[in-house]
Structures are given as structure tokens and as C-alpha cells.
């Protein structure tokens, strides 16, 4: 069986990318904490990761090569790594008059949570790389 670095790294490579995207989203929410009308967004991490890993797990997906072929477009967005479908708007706990739905405390908590989980994913990846190096060098 050919060795694939992607399958070796497992879910963690995709998870790291998604965590990074979520970092960006939360940074955006915090930066726009005082922008009138700004709607806070978050990533549905579980669903996004499930979609990415299931898309990655099926290398032999069907391809539409003729005009009459149907039914593969739905997965195109997922397999291209797009997470647009998993962006969700936050429901504000206390809506403000200017239409802004950012709750700084909530966003900060989410940011801290995301940072810790990012570091966890990093250490998983780091362990994987170390074992690989051990296997390669044999020491």
C-alpha cells in the first residue's frame, strides 16, 4: 500500500486549517465589536470538519463527464475546501439598537477556546511528525 502523508496525518491537517479559519472569523468579530450593523459569524466546526474529512476519504468520487450526468455538483463546494456553507450567524443574547450582534465576552471566550484547540491540534501533528522522523532516521 502506498504511503500517503495525508492519510498519515489523519484528521489533524484539515482540523488545523479549519481552526485557523475560525481564528480569523473570531478576530473579525472582535475587530468589529463597535461597528453598527455588523453581524457576528462563527464556523460550525464539527460539520465543516466532518464534510472535509468525508470529502477527503472518498478519492474515487463520481465525475460528471457528459451533459446527461447528474448529482455530483453538491459535493464540489465541499471537496474544494470551501467552508461557506458552515458559516453561521450568531444569535445575540442581548440585541443592541445599532444592529451589532457582537458580544465581546462571548467572542473572547470562543477565541481562547479556539486557540487552545489549535494548540492541541498542533501538538498532535507535532507528535505525528516526530514519529515519522523516528521511522525515517531509525534512531
Amino acid at each position, binding site marked *: 500500500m502506498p504511503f500517503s502523508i495525508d492519510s498519515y496525518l489523519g484528521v489533524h491537517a484539515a482540523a488545523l486549517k479549519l481552526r485557523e479559519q475560525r481564528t*480569523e*472569523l473570531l*478576530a*473579525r468579530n*472582535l*475587530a*468589529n465589536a463597535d461597528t453598527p450593523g455588523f453581524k457576528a459569524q462563527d464556523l460550525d466546526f464539527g460539520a465543516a470538519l466532518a464534510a472535509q474529512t468525508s470529502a477527503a476519504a472518498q478519492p474515487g468520487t463520481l465525475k460528471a463527464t457528459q451533459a446527461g450526468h447528474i448529482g455530483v455538483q453538491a459535493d464540489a463546494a465541499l471537496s474544494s475546501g470551501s467552508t461557506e456553507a458552515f458559516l453561521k450567524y450568531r444569535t445575540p443574547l442581548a440585541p443592541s439598537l445599532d444592529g451589532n450582534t457582537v458580544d465581546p465576552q462571548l467572542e*473572547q471566550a470562543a477565541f481562547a477556546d479556539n486557540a487552545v484547540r489549535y494548540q492541541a491540534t498542533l501538538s498532535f501533528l507535532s507528535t505525528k*511528525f516526530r514519529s515519522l522522523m523516528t521511522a525515517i532516521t531509525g534512531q
Partner: protein
Amino acid sequence: MSSFKVFDIAGSGMAAQSVRLNTVASNLANAESVSGDAKTAYKARHPVFEAMKAQAGASKNGVDPNAAVKVLGIVEDQRAPEMRYQPGNPLANSEGYVFAPNVNVVEEMVDMISASRAYQNNVEVMNTSKELLMATLRLGS
């Protein structure tokens, strides 16, 4: 590269909040700058923020193009200036009135606290992102 976008976003937030702090400083400094005419009296200034739309084609990875903060402009407060009867003031008009700015000092102080907290939030985001990015760069070593 998208990892570095966090810095742009947090940076724009910091820039916007510092504009806000600047206007607060200007308003507080001029809180007692009286004038002899209602038109020339100092008016309180407030920045208006807007979520920035990224340039076309910048929306990659399916991320919403609403990104950083932009200071759309600075508006002057339209409340009427406060009239004070000070006939001894050399700036007073023919009826003995001077016009004090429409700066509400309490509002400005609250604005200052809010701006500085928001600034700190953005600094925190930037620091954490930097640490995460550095850890990513060290990955595998």
C-alpha cells in the same frame, strides 16, 4: 496567505479604536474652548465605523468578504452648543454670551473606556495569533 489575515483584521480594529481615542482626546481637550459665535463653537467629533468589504476576488476559502473595520468618516455632533452668560469674557458676543462646545464629558469618558477595552481585545487577538503562528512554524522540530 490567509494565516496573516488575522493581523490585518486585528490591526484595522486597533487603528479604528485609536481614531476613536483620538477624537475623545480632541473632544475632552476642547471641552471648555468657548467661542463668541454658535457657528464657530467647537463641535464634538465621533468616528463612524463600517465593516470593510474586501476587494473582488479576495473571498477565498469561502470566507465572508466582510473583513476588517474601516473608519468611514468622522461626524460632528449636531446638538446645540451651550450658551453661557459671561459678559466679562473677551470672546462674548454683543449680548454677553459665549458658546461652549456640545461636548458631554461623561459620554466621552465612557467612550474612552469602551475604546481602550476594544483596543486591548484586538491586541490580545494579535498576540494569541502570533503565538499560534510561531508554534505552527516550529511544527515538526
